[in-house]
C-alpha cells in the first residue's frame, strides 16, 4: 500500500500529463467531427405559437408586440448583410403578421410594414400573402382600415396583376362609411372595372354614386364633385367612342 502511494506520488504528474493528452486528443477528434456543423439559419423563422407569445409577454402584450414587430421588420438583416425579399418565405411572414395582429389589432405598424416594405418583393406571386393579410386585417373594421384595403387593391393591381382580386377588394373598399375616407374609395371599383374593359360595371358604380348624391344619401363635397364631373365626362367620352350602350348592361349590376 505504501509502495503504491509512493509510486503515485512519484509518477502522478506523468499520469496527469498523459490524461491531459488523451482529453486534448478527444477535443481535437470532437472538433474534426463537428467542424461542418452549422446552426440552421432561417431568414424568417416560424411564427411563435399562441401559448409562447402569451408566456413571453409576461402579461404585457403591447411590449411584446413592439419587440416582435421590430424582429419582423429586421428579419433578414443579419450578420451585417441584407437578403433580397424574393428569398423570404412569405407564408411565414403572413403567419407572423397574423400572430402580431392577435397581440394588437389597433396598431397600423404591421399593415404599414406589409404594404410599404414586404409588398416590394420582385417575386410578385408572394404579394398574394401580403394582400390576404391586408384584406383580413382590414375586414375587422373597414371604416378604420379603408387605407389598408386600398393598399391591397393597389398591390393586387400593380404588383400581382390580378385584376379580379383587385376588383373584389375595391368592392370591399367601397363599403366603408368612414368620414375621413375620400370619395374615390367609392369609385375605385369603377376605375378597375373600366381598366378590365367592363364598361357596364364602371357605368353601374358611377350611376349608383350619382343616384346616392341626388337622393341625399351621400353628401359629396364640392371639390370631390368637381373631380367626379371631370372623371365622368372623361369616361363618358371614352364610352361614347367605344359605342357603349348602357341598356345592354345586366340589371343585376
Amino acid at each position: 500500500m505504501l509502495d503504491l502511494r509512493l509510486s503515485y506520488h512519484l509518477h502522478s504528474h506523468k499520469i496527469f500529463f498523459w490524461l491531459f493528452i488523451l482529453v486534448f486528443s478527444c477535443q481535437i477528434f470532437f472538433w474534426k467531427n463537428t467542424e461542418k456543423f452549422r446552426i440552421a439559419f432561417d431568414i424568417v423563422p416560424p411564427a411563435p405559437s399562441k401559448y409562447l407569445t402569451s408566456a413571453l409577454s409576461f402579461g404585457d402584450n403591447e411590449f411584446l408586440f413592439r419587440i416582435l414587430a421590430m424582429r419582423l421588420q429586421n428579419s433578414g438583416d443579419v450578420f451585417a448583410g441584407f437578403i433580397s425579399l424574393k428569398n423570404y418565405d412569405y407564408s411565414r411572414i403572413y403567419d407572423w403578421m397574423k400572430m402580431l395582429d392577435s397581440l394588437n389589432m389597433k396598431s397600423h405598424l404591421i399593415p404599414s410594414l406589409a404594404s410599404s416594405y414586404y409588398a416590394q418583393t420582385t417575386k410578385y406571386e408572394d404579394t398574394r400573402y401580403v394582400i390576404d393579410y391586408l384584406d383580413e386585417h382590414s375586414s375587422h373594421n373597414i371604416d378604420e382600415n379603408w387605407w389598408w384595403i386600398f393598399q391591397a387593391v393597389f398591390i393586387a393591381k400593380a404588383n400581382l396583376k390580378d385584376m379580379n382580386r383587385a376588383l373584389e377588394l375595391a368592392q370591399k373598399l367601397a363599403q366603408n362609411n368612414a368620414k375621413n375616407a375620400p370619395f374615390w374609395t367609392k369609385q375605385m371599383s369603377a376605375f378597375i372595372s373600366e381598366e378590365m374593359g367592363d364598361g357596364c360595371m364602371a357605368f353601374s358604380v358611377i350611376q349608383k354614386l350619382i343616384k346616392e348624391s341626388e337622393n341625399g344619401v351621400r353628401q359629396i363635397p364640392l371639390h370631390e364633385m368637381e373631380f367626379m364631373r371631370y372623371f365622368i365626362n372623361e369616361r363618358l367620352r371614352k364610352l361614347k367612342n367605344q359605342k357603349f350602350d348602357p341598356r345592354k348592361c345586366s340589371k343585376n349590376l
Partner: protein
Amino acid sequence: MKQILKYILKNGLRDRLYLGLFITLIVSFSISIFLGSTMLAEQKQSTAAFIAGSSRAILAIGMILFVCLSINRAFENKEVEFILSKSIAREQFILGYLLGFFLAALLIFIPLVLIIALVTKPSIAGLIIWSCTLLSELLIIICFSLLASLILKNSFSAIMASFAFYTISRLMGVFVMAIELPQDLAEAKNHILATGLKFLSALFPRLDLFAQSSWLNYGINDAYGLKIIFWQSLIYIPLMIFMAFHDFKKKQF
C-alpha cells in the same frame, strides 16, 4: 416610525439605489428611444411601449434586491434587535419598513412618470392608470420581498423566492389559459399539471393584468380589468402584511 422611514430612505442613498436605478433607467430610456426611432411607423408608440416595459422590469428587480439586501443586513448587523429594544411594536416596525421601501420606490417612480409623459406624450388617463397600477404592483413585490426576507433570513434565498414569485405572477395569465380541469375526480390524476396550475393560480396574484403598456398608447378600454386589479391589490397587500405580522410576532431575538 419616522426614524425608520428616514433610515430606509438613507439606506437607499447609501446603497446607491437611487443612483443605480436612475442610471439603469436612463440607459433603458436611451435604448428605447433609439429602437423606437428605427421603426417604420408608430415610432412614438413603440418608444412608449419599450420604455414602459423595460422600466417596469428594472423597478421590480431593483426593489426586490434593495428590500431583500436591506432586511438581511438589518438582521446581520443586529439593527432589528436594536430598533425593537426601543418602545416600538413589531407591527409598527413592519409597517415602517414597508412604508420606507414604498417611499424609496416612489422617489424613483415620480421622475420616471414625468419623463415618460414628456418623451412619449401618452394618453393622460392611460398614464395615470398605468402609474397607479405599476405602483400597486411594486407595493405587492415589496410586501412579498419583505415577507420572504423575514421568513427565509438568507438574502440569496429571499431574492430567488421574490424573483420566482414575480415571474410566476406575471405568467399567471398563461397558466389560467392552460388550465383545463377534469370533468370528474377520477380523471384528476391524468390532469396533475392542470390541477397544479389551478392551485398556483389561487395562491399567486394576477400581476399580468397590471401596468399594461397599451394604456399609454390607446388609453383605457376595459374597466373590468381595472376592477380586478383594484380588488387584487386590496386583498393581496394586506394578506402579505398580516402574514409578515404573524411571522415576525413569533420570532425570538
